């Protein structure tokens, strides 16, 4: 047993605090918007120049000029504001975004993140990933614990080109929640039915357990 993508997103949502400014990466992180805990309010930042991103529009609200950084049509939440790309990244780089939740290809125990390229394979460009990973007050990564071929994506050190160094605070995989502590990962929580042995076996970095 391990967490489903939905459960992973719900667990990431539990990291959010009232009043947080949150940037969600493309893919799984986007789902976290559906799991903001009841009773708290957060503002979603989209790096293409929008603070206060709302949910997808109803058909009759559709506006081609309101999109998120994934180029999906979205809406404006109450209190939203629009601005240019320089101010948008001033927010990110300047530490005004509280939490960035990003997808990952690899995370190292020292907090290094790789999520923008696989040499010889994936050519997409970094977009806003390097700014976001390094700029947010807290960077959370959501990824699978291992690759399709079973190799660990929680590493002692990165094998892929880094996106930003020492930036990741916490990783949420289908197996559990892990903090980057420099010379080891600290497991804070395991998904139901996941054993410590399994987590250790599937982690290439050093894994320790809280408590």
């Amino acid at each position: 047993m391990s967490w489903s993508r939905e459960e992973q997103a719900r667990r990431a949502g539990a990291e959010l605090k009232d009043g947080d400014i949150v940037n969600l990466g493309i893919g799984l992180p986007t789902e976290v918007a559906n799991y903001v805990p009841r009773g708290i309010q957060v503002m979603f930042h989209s790096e293409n120049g929008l603070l206060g991103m709302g949910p997808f529009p109803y058909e009759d609200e559709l506006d081609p000029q309101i999109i998120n950084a994934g180029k999906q049509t979205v809406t404006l939440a109450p209190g939203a504001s629009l601005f240019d790309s320089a101010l948008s990244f001033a927010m990110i780089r300047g530490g005004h975004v509280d939490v960035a939740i990003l997808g990952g290809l690899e995370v190292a125990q020292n907090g290094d993140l790789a999520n923008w390229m696989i040499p010889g394979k994936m050519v997409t460009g970094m977009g806003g990933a390097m700014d976001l990973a390094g700029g947010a007050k807290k960077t959370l990564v959501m990824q699978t614990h291992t690759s399709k071929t079973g190799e660990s994506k929680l590493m002692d050190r990165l094998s892929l080109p880094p996106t930003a160094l020492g930036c990741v605070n916490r990783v949420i995989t289908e197996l559990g929640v892990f903090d980057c502590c420099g010379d080891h990962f600290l497991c804070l929580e395991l998904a139901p039915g996941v054993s410590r042995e399994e987590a250790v076996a599937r982690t290439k970095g050093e894994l320790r357990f809280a408590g």
Partner: protein
Amino acid sequence: MKVVKDAREALQGLESGMSVMSGGFGLCGNPEQCIKTLAESGIKDLTIISNNCGNQGRGLAALLQNRQVSKVICSFIGGNPDLATQYLAGEVQVELNPQGTLAERIRAGGAGLGGFFTPTGVGTAVADGKELREIDGRLYLFEKLLKADFALVRAAVGDKLGNLRFYRTSRNFNPLMAMAARVTVAEVDTLVEVGELDPDDIHLPGLFVDRIFEASHENPIEHRTVRTREAR
């Protein structure tokens, strides 16, 4: 006067070998008429500075399909098969910048700054060959200004002095690029008389705009994501 008839007149002087900034994020907020006119022009060997250089075969991708582009300075080429193919084939040079660095380099060009130190990219491939400097205990990279011969921008409303207002997320890189070119062309959904815009609500003062014309825009959608009322 700054007001011109159409994109053809607005692009007078844009020649092969020049550098061109184009506003827009993906296909949102693109100077559609200018791009279309450029695509029909036969002008080639262009350096395009734009966050994405079109997408899904549309927008600036038309210039790629026509082999009018020799270099692209951008942050993201995902979802752009024309660019990816020509890049991998070595037919187009691509300079990738972190998106915030791209925005800031353009702003620096427009603001008369030579460059700046940013923490973004330290320890990554982006840092190759660039100066690294510790300032107040944090590591930064040096990044240089970026300017262009022409900037093609798109706004919602403009007046005859070139004062512009942008709509929603169509703003993105448009106001920055307007500051950073030798000649700035603005195409607007609606052209109004001087004095119709509230002075507090002008997003980009007209001194940055050299030529302006009214044009209709298609506003294509890249990823049409909606929800249904039932699912509420």
